């Protein structure tokens, strides 16, 4: 298989996968349950979801390890099972994905705020990423996602941890931005320009954004990333903010609606496009069509 970065370098646009969390909820994941433990308890569901995204045309499939940072797993009293839960995330989908798509390991925020405004030492967050990533990359993976970051300081710790233990694996670092009248900022006040610059300096191979509040804002975020970074850009939008109807969640943005905006992102030269919360294999299939017909 030609390497991930090589294909991007050749001008190819790669397609990521869609949501995992909301897919698991549809399959019975309960409120308050740790999604990552399903790597061990329900691996067949992760295999099924991976297959659905492969059939939809994804070039990259990601693991169910978003909440696998030790400080996060500790909150669910899984302190002693960090390696087990994370490596099971790769094992669950490895055979399904191998040879068909790149396997990306997902690392989300640790759920703690860094000192001095928070109460957690940066060293503890770093060590946590090293521990999580150690278990993940030990299983043989193609890409590392440091994703849904709202604090650039934490994102940088994640990127550096990845580069310290597996410098050969490409790292995609993506953050979540909110729209304000003064432009796009993360909750912690990081701008896109600042994120693009500092993530690159920390060693990220790809930068960008995921989650957010709808693909229309995401197109604007994509444009700004292109303006401020020379690195390839990855964009994975959610399907808008959910609406609750009779206790059932519905994400408002349809595959067609989103695919139309994916086209705009192709115009902007975005290199990797996928989905986040609320996107489904149907969304990914329609992104595939848009990319192939472009």
């Amino acid at each position, binding site marked *: 298989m030609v390497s991930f970065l090589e294909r991007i370098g050749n001008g190819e646009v790669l397609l990521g996968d869609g949501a995992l969390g909301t897919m698991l909820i549809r399959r019975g994941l309960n*409120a*308050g349950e740790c999604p990552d433990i399903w790597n061990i308890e329900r691996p067949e569901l992760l295999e099924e979801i991976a297959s659905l995204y492969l059939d939809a045309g994804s070039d990259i499939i990601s693991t169910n390890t978003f909440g696998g940072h030790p400080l996060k797993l500790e909150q669910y009293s899984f302190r002693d099972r960090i390696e087990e839960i994370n490596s099971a995330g790769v094992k669950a989908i490895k055979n399904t994905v191998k040879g068909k798509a790149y396997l990306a390991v997902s690392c989300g925020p640790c759920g703690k705020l860094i000192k*001095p*405004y928070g109460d957690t030492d940066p060293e503890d967050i770093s060590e946590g990423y090293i521990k999580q990533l150690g278990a993940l990359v030990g299983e043989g993976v193609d890409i590392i996602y440091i994703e849904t970051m709202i604090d650039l300081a934490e994102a940088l710790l994640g990127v550096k941890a990845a580069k310290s233990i597996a410098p050969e694996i490409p790292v995609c670092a993506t953050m979540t931005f909110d729209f304000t*009248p003064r432009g796009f900022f993360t*909750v912690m006040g990081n701008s896109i320009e600042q994120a693009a610059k500092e993530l690159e300096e920390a060693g990220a191979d790809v930068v960008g954004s995921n989650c957010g509040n709808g693909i229309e804002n995401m197109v604007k975020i994509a444009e700004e990333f292109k303006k401020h970074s020379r690195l390839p850009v990855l964009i994975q939008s959610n399907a808008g903010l*959910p609406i609750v109807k009779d206790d059932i969640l519905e994400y408002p943005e349809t595959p067609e609606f989103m695919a139309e905006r994916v086209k705009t992102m192709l115009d902007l030269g975005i290199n990797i496009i996928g989905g986040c919360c609320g996107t489904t294999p149907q969304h990914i299939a329609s992104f595939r069509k848009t990319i192939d017909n472009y």
Partner: protein
Amino acid sequence: MELLDQLKDSLQKGESEQVARFTKQGLSEKIDVRTILDDGLIAGMSIVGAKFKDHEIFLPDVLLAAKAMYVGMDIIKPLMIKEGIPTLGKVVIGTVHGDLHDIGKNLVGIMLKGAGFEIIDLGRDVPAEKFIEAAVESDADVIGMSALLTTTMPVMKKVIGLAKEKGIYDKVKIVVGGAPLSNEYAEQIGAHAYCYDGVNAVDRVKEFVKA
């Protein structure tokens, strides 16, 4: 610069040591405790809230300012109790059962405390019964619930149902907030108000204690 301005200024910058220094200095200069609270700490925090609302400053600045505010409040608290200065009201807050996210809830707590309310913070992953028990026990005016996960939002409905069952729904006002929430959802589940951010929460809760 006048002492209270210095206090407000250092609070906004999140300089805890300076806030402690100016608060103590105020007390030794026989400035009324109430004045230090209202025109120093609360006034400073209110500016922080307004700037945060306008996106001039962000969460880290607010958290640092809050830490400084707490330092000042701890110094004057014994005197407030001694002089019998009442708080604006009591608010029980928490993130609902199943939800471990507490950044938003903490921010609301900071803003309410900074506005002069007494906060009973139940933390996160709070069982429905706990909200009701705490509200009854403390004779709270308001219950504030937070949820970040779309999967935990329905727990709020359960708490409201329980409040009705226990007969406190008409006495204690229930406010809700969190990223996936909306006015419509709050109405649907019978909450008395939806608060879209910490500053808004202060406004809404103030309406309830006045009424």
